[in-house]
Structures are given as structure tokens and as C-alpha cells.
């Protein structure tokens, strides 16, 4: 929980946003984050973000599903309660494939979605600061962190030169907090 001060620039086109992101990175100002209404391809590279490992995690969850299904069915039919069905061997691998496949997919999907929510810190009842209400509509919003080394005016003026259609200075909580979206900002209470 930390409240920081940000200079915020809003752009109305991703083609303006890209050069702006590059300029801010070159300038040495500390870019907090960029918020867009839809996925903008290449923005993560432009911002210098690393590629996500979410798919690797999904693969591991999938393997866990495979192992669970084969291990469980194998244990039941060979040691816990061995039975013969239709003359098949106890460990009837071909007959186990459908359930093994389904559990692989199930584990991978459920695990990935939960990991996705955890990494993004999202869940029902979570509230976060919005720098602009239209950042989920048609504005591309960049937040630049302000600190002792820079003045507010200097950063805002700089952001204006990058083609921002709207700029502002805001104090904002950087983390999430429990809250209802129909209530006004209650993070100061949560943070104190």
C-alpha cells in the first residue's frame, strides 16, 4: 500500500502512443504503466516488458492433470479395487486416454485462469485506481511516476509534447484494495 504522485497523459490513438512510449523511456522518466482499452500488439515490447510465462505454467498444470488421472485410475484398477471389464487388462491404457485427456485440459485451464487472476491481482471485490474513466473505452493512458528529482510542470509539459490530448497530475494508490465500485474512493481509509 503506497500512495504516489503521477503525471498522467491520455492519447486517443495507438499510433501516437507508440512514439510517446519510446520518448518517455528515452527521457529517463519513470513510466509507471500504460492502460489501453484493448490489447495493443507490440506495446509490451515498446515498454520493455518481458514476455509472460503464463503458457509455461499452463503446460505444468496440464502435466499435473495427466499424472493425476493416470495415477488415480491406475491405482484404483490395479491395487485398490481391481476388476475386469470386458476382458480388458487392469491397467487398460487406451480406455484411460479419454479421461486422462479431459483432466489434462481441465487442470491446465483452471490452473491458468487462477494464475492469471493472481498475477494480475484481480478478483471479485477488488478495486484499483483508474487514471481516467475512459481508459477502458477509447483512451490510451500513460502514468509517469513523479519523484524528488523532477518537477510536476516539467513532466506534464514534456508529456504534452508527445501528443497527449489530455494531461493531469494525480495522487494514486498503486496497489489494489477491497472496495465497491459504486462507492467513492475508499483506498485512503484502507491505506491508513
Amino acid at each position, binding site marked *: 500500500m503506497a500512495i504516489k504522485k503521477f503525471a498522467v497523459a491520455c492519447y486517443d490513438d495507438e499510433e501516437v502512443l507508440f512514439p510517446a512510449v519510446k520518448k518517455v523511456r528515452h527521457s529517463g522518466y519513470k513510466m509507471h*504503466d*500504460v*492502460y*489501453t*482499452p*484493448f*490489447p495493443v*500488439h*507490440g*506495446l*509490451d515490447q515498446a*515498454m520493455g*516488458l518481458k*514476455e*509472460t510465462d*503464463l*503458457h509455461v505454467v*499452463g503446460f505444468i498444470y*496440464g502435466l499435473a492433470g495427466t499424472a493425476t488421472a493416470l495415477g488415480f*485410475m491406475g491405482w*484404483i*484398477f490395479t491395487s*485398490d*479395487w481391481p*476388476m475386469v*471389464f*470386458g476382458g*480388458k487388462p487392469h491397467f*487398460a491404457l487406451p*480406455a*484411460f486416454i*479419454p*479421461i486422462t*485427456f*479431459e*483432466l489434462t*485440459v*481441465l487442470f*491446465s*485451464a483452471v490452473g*491458468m485462469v487462477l494464475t*492469471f487472476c493472481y498475477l*494480475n*491481482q*484481480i*478478483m*471479485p*471485490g*477488488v478495486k*484499483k485506481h483508474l487514471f481516467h*474513466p*475512459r*481508459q*477502458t*473505452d*477509447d483512451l490510451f493512458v500513460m502514468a509517469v511516476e513523479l519523484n524528488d528529482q523532477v518537477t510536476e510542470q516539467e513532466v506534464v509539459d514534456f508529456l504534452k509534447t508527445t501528443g497527449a490530448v489530455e494531461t493531469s497530475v494525480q495522487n494514486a494508490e498503486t496497489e*489494489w484494495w477491497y472496495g*465497491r*465500485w*459504486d462507492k467513492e474512493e475508499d483506498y485512503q481509509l484502507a491505506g491508513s
Partner: protein
Amino acid sequence: MHLKYESFVREPLVDGDKTYHQVTEDIVRPIEQKPGRMWYIGFYFSVLLLLFGVFSVTWAVYWGLGTWGVNRTVGWGWDITNFVWWVGIGHAGTLISAILLLFRQGWRTGVNRAAEAMTIFAVMCAGQFPIFHMGRVWDGFFVLPYPNSRGALWPNFDSPLLWDVFAISTYFTVSLLFWYSGLIPDFATVRDRAKTKFRKFMYGFASFGWTGAAKSWQRHEALSLVLAGLATPLVLSVHTIVSFDFATSVIPGWHTTIFPPYFVAGAIFSGFAMVQSLLIICRRIMGLEEYITVGHLEAMNKVIVLTGSIVGVAYLTELFMAWYSQVVYEQAAFQWRIAGPYWWSYWAMMTCNVVSPQLFWFKKLRRNIPFTFIMSIVVNIGMWFERFVIIVTSLYRDYLPGSWTYYSPTWPEIGFYLGTFGLFFTCFFLFAKYFPVIAIAEIKFVLKTSGENYKNKMDKIDAKSTEEFIHEQAEAHHH
């Protein structure tokens, strides 16, 4: 090198002069307005149907399955027919949202949200039938492998019926997750422009606190892609396993290796027809003609003519194999299908599924909306008859002529089926009112490459020579 250019030969996916904000306005409008009279009429009618279904099922559970027309010879009647029919319908949603995503089919963005919703509701309807088919439904949880007091007696993992339990429940879960993860950013869009307290609260809750941060989007893209990759083999496996319910048994007419691909093609066929029925009405009532264009409908009609033809080939292959196998039981089963007491169901299936979709080879008919709507209903009637033919006309004359019988449904069976329509449309009406029926973020994503106003700007680029264009793109990339 990323070329932001798409050929003018492809028609725009979004018609009209749209900005990002206009897209939000258009798609969120139905959520923020009071629904029209048609919505209320449709919704209450669906709820009424649903209640009648609940009554019919309660009747059957209370008095026992003897109230149904199924008997010792025909153990699977309308219930399993309807189960397979609904599951099949669901498959189009996954095909559109997952398989077409992997194939980079841009046109899917206009229809995937509604199609995926249809999948979830259809699977919910489908699931009811095997559950109540159990008879003693209060013991239904016996299908789950849990350490129980019966000496830890486990279900039979070698049985296709148990595979079905896993397949359907996994399919439902994964479809729901895929659908909902796509909805989160769109719920955030609705939340951030909400005027009423109720909407702010509800969509705030439903959007999980989404802000659209770059890293979140990056993970979202990765998640969507992998879920699509998982859903693709999943959807094929589900109907394959459903077909195993039949194919692994030794009933003439069922015991054939052609079933998995034949069932999957049929599922996609009927599912696309259902998407057409729903979207043709939706786009009209909700004023979304610029997002669900005639081009979208035509693309789906192409899938219908393709899968319909595959199904037709499968029907003919079955006939050929019956003759070629020289097995008298197999031959008799197909003779009676064609000219036995259930001949009408076979010919209804043939006409609706094989003959009529061939009309879609004509471009004029593919782009004709009333015709498409009628065809979509015809196809779904045909596909219902297909399942009825496969199930009932393989069972009613078994190996013992003494137990031959004729099966007709009773009112609780018909009421159960009507009830699932009630469930399906109740859910769909609520979806149409409270959910963004088109994926807002995805439309914005394709807007600049495939929107009409942006495509028009490409005329200048089209006039350039190829060398000049490549040179410019390469230069732009270096800076």
C-alpha cells in the same frame, strides 16, 4: 515486420464510420437502455416454458421414469436424443471462439461472444438429460469417483458413459472460463461508463477490478491463445466421446468407426445453424447490423454447406458399409431405417441435412437473410431427426423379434424437451440484456485493419507499387 494492411478484396468486418468510442456506445447501449416489449414477451414466454419443463421433470422424478415412453427395448428415447442434440449445438460456439482464433479468422470477433454464450447454455440444457435419465436422480453423484462408504466402490473408468461425465463437465468448465476471461475487460468498459449505482456495483464486481494495464493485456492474450489451443482438441474430444457411447456398443447401426468424425461434423453443422437463428434475430432487435454483417452470415453459411456435405457423405458411407459388410443385422437396420415404420424420420433427416443445405452453393442464397434464417431452423430440425434416427431406429427392433416395439414419447418427455428450450432462452435473454453481446475489446482490436472507414483509406496504398510499399514499411520500421 508487421504490415497494417489488409486486402480490399476482403469485405470490412465492421461497417460504417466507427471510432473506438462509437463501438463502445453501440455495444453497451442495449445494457443501458430499458429493454423493448419484444424482450419482455420473449423472456416471460421462456420462463413459462422453463417452468413447464420443471413441472414435467418433477412429474417424472416423482412417479418414476415409467411416465416416459421409453421401455425395455428402446431404453434411450427423446432424452438421449435431446442430450446429443444440445451438446452438438454447443460445439459451434467453441469452434468460432477457439478454432477460428487459431486459424486467424478475423470475422469471428463479431459473433464469438454470443456463440460462446450459446455453447454454455446449450451444454447446461444437454446436461439435464443424462442426469434425469438416471431415474433415481438423487443418487446421481454416484458417477463421481469419491471415497465412499460402499467399500470405496469406484465408477467404471473403462466405460464411455463415464468418459462422458468427464468430457461434458470439463467442456462446460473450460468454455465458461474462456468466455468469462474474455468478458472481464468488457465488463470493465461497462463499469467505467455506468451511471446508476446498481450497474457500478454489479459490473465492478463482475470485472474483477480490471484496469487494462499493458502487462494484464499481455497475459490476457497469452491466456486466450492457450485456452483456444486447449478448447480446440477438447471440443473434438467431447463429441467423439459422445459418439463412443454408441460406437463402442454392439448394436447394428451404432457399431461403426465412422462415428467420431461424423458426429463432430454434425455438431458443428447444427451449432452454426443455431448461431444463425439467434444472431439474425439479435442483430435486428439490438441494432447490431454493422457488427454482425451479411459477410458474417455468409461465412457461417459456408461452414454449414461444408459440414452438411460431410454429414451427407457419412450417411451414404453408412449405407455402403451396411451393404458391403454382408452382416444381415446391419443390413436390416438400414433397410428399416429407410423403409421401416420410422421411415418418416429418416427421410426428414435426409431432406433437412443433406439436400437443403446444398442450396447454399448459391451466393445469392448465402447472403439472403430470411432464407438463411429458415434454413437454420430446417438444419436444426434435421439434426434432431438424425439423433432420433440413430438412437431409436437402431434400438426398436433388436436381436429378439419378440421384443420388437414402437416408441413414442409421452407428455413428460416432450415437456422436458420444451423445458430445456425455456432454460436456454431464459439464459439467452438475460445474456442479451446484461452482457456485452459482442466482444468490445476484440472489435476495437480489428477496427483499424478491418473497419470500413479504415479500409477505405487503403485505396491510396493499393495504388502504390509493391516495391514502393515494402520500402516504406521497412523504412518506417527502422525509425
